[in-house]
């Protein structure tokens, strides 16, 4: 159902979409039943001449069933929703599959920046790739992201992945995703973060392994490295910077 409004592009997007569909069917059914009951009673018991109102306290034994039966039905429906909701949640947020790649996501007023391993495949080495505003990932690869904030709360949201996680200064929050579709998608900030909140956009580029390797080669080329990275002691400052202009 949600696919009609927003594309799904991660492994867990379909499970979240199915959960939403399940809830929509259950609550939609009850909403329609309740509204029909309401409007039917309004029409059936409108004031007419010769029809006196009845005296019903609702506390008689044969009447309380009209409240107790719906009561148990609601509990049953709640259970039908709670169980898959928790299963989906555990899959997305609680149990992380082993990482094939790890990226760091930094949020600050009002930009996203990213750090990922260079050709050596290890984070925090001299060839790390740092980007601003644009994250390049491979499809069908389990990524762990380490989410940090440099100032206030932000929230890392990729609607097509059905992924959303607040960034809290002072903490590193780890999550995961596995993209299933190549393309370029929005990264939003979904937590109020000040004046530039509406400007805090990013793009996530999902590529095939070949495209990704080509991109990595391009941003790791010595010419670019020499042009942007002055000599320095720390690994962080030595890493290549691929500034992405929008």
């Amino acid at each position: 159902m949600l696919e009609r409004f927003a594309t799904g592009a991660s492994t867990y997007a379909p499970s979240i979409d199915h959960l939403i569909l399940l809830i929509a069917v259950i609550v939609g059914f009850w909403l329609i039943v309740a509204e029909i009951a309401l409007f039917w009673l309004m029409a059936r018991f409108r004031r007419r001449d010769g029809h006196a109102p009845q005296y019903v306290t609702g506390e008689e034994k044969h009447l309380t069933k009209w409240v107790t039966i719906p009561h148990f039905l609601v509990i049953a429906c709640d259970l039908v929703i709670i169980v898959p909701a928790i299963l989906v949640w555990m899959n997305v947020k609680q149990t992380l599959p082993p990482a094939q790649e790890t990226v760091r996501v930094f949020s600050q007023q009002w930009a996203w920046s990213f750090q990922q391993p260079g050709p050596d495949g290890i984070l925090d080495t001299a060839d790390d790739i740092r980007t601003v505003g644009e994250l390049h990932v491979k499809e069908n690869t389990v990524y762990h992201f380490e989410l940090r904030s440099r100032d206030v709360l932000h929230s890392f949201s990729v609607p097509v992945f059905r992924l959303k996680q607040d960034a809290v200064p002072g903490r590193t929050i780890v999550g995961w995703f596995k993209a299933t579709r190549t393309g370029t998608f929005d990264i939003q900030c979904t937590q109020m973060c000040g004046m530039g909140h509406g400007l805090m956009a990013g793009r996530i580029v999902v590529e095939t392994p070949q495209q990704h390797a080509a991109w990595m080669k391009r941003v790791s080329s010595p010419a670019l490295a020499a042009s942007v990275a002055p000599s320095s002691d720390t690994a962080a400052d030595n890493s290549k910077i691929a500034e992405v202009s929008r």
Partner: protein
Amino acid sequence: MTTPATGAHAHAGSHGHEPGHHETSFFHKYLWSTDHKMIAMQYLFTGAALALIGGYLAYVFRMQLAFPGHVVPGYGLVTPNRYNSLVTIHGSIMIFWVAMPVLVAAFGNFLIPLMIGCDDMVFPRINRLSYQIFLLSALILLSSFLVKGGAFGGAWTSYPPLSAKGIYNLSPLGSTLWLVAVALEFVAFLLGGLNFIVTTMNGRAPGMRMWDIPVVVWMIVIASVLFMASVGPLIAGAIMLLFDQRLGTGFFDPGRGGDPLLWQHLFWFFGHPEVYVVLLPALGIVAEIITVFARKKLFGYRTILYTTWATGVLSFVVWAHHQFIAGIDPRMANVFTITTLLISVPITEMIFVYIATLYGGSIQFTTPMLWALSFIAEFLIGGVTGIFLGASGADIYFHDTYFVVAHFHYTFFPSAIIGMFAGLTFWYPKMFGRMLNETLGKIHFWGTIIAFNMIFLPLFITGAAGDQRRIYDYALFPEQMRPELQHLRQLSTVGVMILMTFQVFFLVNFFWSLKHGKRAGENPWLSNTLEWTVPSPPPHGNFAELPTVYRGPYEYATPGRKEDYWPQNAPITPLEEGAL
């Protein structure tokens, strides 16, 4: 020992409330009064004035969303910082300075003494102080628009570190004024709530048992209990945040051992019960109206009270569903998903009881009845869409999107606005002694209801399509720039304009009827509760002779009686005793 009721009457009588000592100046009559009815009017008119301001703010930011970057007629250019201030102050005003004063304070003050048969609140001077602090808090909030840096723009939830430091929010003075205003507003309602609870427990007319108290009074009392029990942590949090802002402490600063998430827990521990503080009085108002206009006893008076208490207790253990993705331990979400979905059980039961009350009735579609019925119809939508957000797995996607905005407006608008109009149109004859015009009332009703749905139904769709909240312009988010989404945003904005236009009908009706409406008499709706046994408007001191209560408030169409209503204070005549 005397009964509690006589004790309270003796006390209230001792400070000069006898009817007939009137010769008071304008100042003493309207501004310095301790009469509960006058204080109710002060709350009502202040709340209504702030509702117009809050509505104006909504108009400005909806115009910006529909036509980004254009000058908004009647405001000017909406800059990003101003946009944040507009949404922040709109939310704060509508919840703290409109819903609470109108539903809890205005109706609570007006109705409680009249409905329980008391001549005033038990603590009239505390009552006056409560309004004065409330007014002060409203003025402080509004003044923040005028200070350097403008009004606070960090969202009505005011999460630190954004709210804690001027270098982050760029409105250091505005954020402090917001915090002071909110804290003072809480003090005002602590005083008011105290009065409501004590008056209801001790000031009831002789013969009124707990089970004879009208549902609306119970609801306001339960709402006051919820408010008083939940607000403590937030007042403490507000003071800590004030210290962080002004004295350089680090309660919420991770760099100095604090934790930003602490504020979220304190805020939502209050914030979720607050939803029910606003909802319950509206539910109570609706209960009074549907029984009168369906000429029916409530379908299970006790069921309503049990489910209300159950809802109230449960509302204290659901707060973290606002924080599923905030960085709390993911395992906590499982617990809060269960408690959150379980709260649907008492609430649906309550709504079923309301719907079932119509069965076997004789329904008159007067303006107050239309409002009350539309409350049920609209609130159902707000209730069921909450399930999507309470279910942790689905909330990952919907959190902080316009789906949330649409959902809580479908709960707050029926409570605060529909509930307010239901109550106002129903008790207007008692408040002002005149009847409202039914034709104007119905035009206003249909315009408001259609416009309301036109505003918020499209937002469910834009939210499902990924529109995140608090964004002044989606230009940088290509996925949200699809033309069909922009059309939906414009549709919603047109709804706001229609909604505002139709309020003119209400204002005209309200002021025209003050002078020219048909005289109401004591009991125009043929209702049972005690407020309808006194003149309209009720005099100082309310009752010429304090009533004695013989029965519950919903004895409509009782078998064996000629009239289809049976006032709570009507003694049983020997003839009727035989017939029963």
